């Protein structure tokens, strides 16, 4: 990258600003917005499980839907109710609507999806349909 020093001689901070702008563009944290919720995906021949940490989310506010091989998880994190005149010292937690989609390795049947929420951790287990399960092929002797 080239930084012409002769332009805008009157403004000594112009160069610094343009460098900072370039730096901002490249640093990875600026490329993507943080994604919520973070998910872990577990797999076996029989099923796929998705776990997500959703602290402070009421299970009634979570929507899970499966369409063909895409599982969508959406909902809302509600801001805590605070009495009038309260003063915030720290606000590190996030609030608002969220949605995430996970592509499954097979087309899931609705009746094979099971979700459970314990202590703010959501666990969705999607069973693999019988016809999709890997089959062992026997080799016949000639």
């Amino acid at each position, binding site marked *: 990258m080239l930084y012409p020093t002769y332009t805008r001689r009157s403004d000594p901070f112009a160069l610094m600003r343009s460098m900072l702008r370039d730096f901002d563009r490249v640093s*990875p944290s600026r490329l993507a917005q943080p994604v919520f919720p973070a998910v872990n*995906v*577990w*797999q076996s021949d029989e099923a796929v499980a998705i776990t997500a940490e959703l602290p402070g989310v009421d299970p009634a506010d979570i929507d899970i839907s499966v369409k063909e091989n895409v599982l969508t998880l959406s909902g809302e994190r509600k801001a805590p109710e605070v009495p009038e005149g*309260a003063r915030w010292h720290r606000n590190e937690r996030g609030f608002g609507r969220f949605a995430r989609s996970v592509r499954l390795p097979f087309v899931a049947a609705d009746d094979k999806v099971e979700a459970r929420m314990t202590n703010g951790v959501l666990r969705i287990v999607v069973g693999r349909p019988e016809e999709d399960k890997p089959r062992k092929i026997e080799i016949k002797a000639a």
Partner: protein
Amino acid sequence: MTNDMTHTADKTSTETPETTTGRRIYRPLTDIVETADGMTLMLEMPGVTAEDVDITLEKRVLTIRGKVHTTQPEKLQLAYAEYGEGDFERAFTMSDDFDPDKIGAQLSNGVLTLTLPRAAEAQPKKITVKAS
């Protein structure tokens, strides 16, 4: 899912001191609100049950620890991970006007809410100025 790096919400682990088991310890994200009668702390501790929370107030340092039960589903292998699991720990230095016996703690949906009522003698007294 894509192969791109996914930036997930903040879950920072504490670097020092290290644990003997090599497991990570995470800093729970916290909201702190001051109300007329005290302080309210809300800590995100997903995967922690009420029995596994340990709260101590010693020499003005409020320490909150939570033991996490890992959520490995039976017979499944981890294929893709965006978050790590580990115990939670965080400490706050409080102003010294809280009564440790009156601290209230409640855990719901993975959020620990602590209420610290201000000690009675430390309640701010309002002084009215009389017009002469």
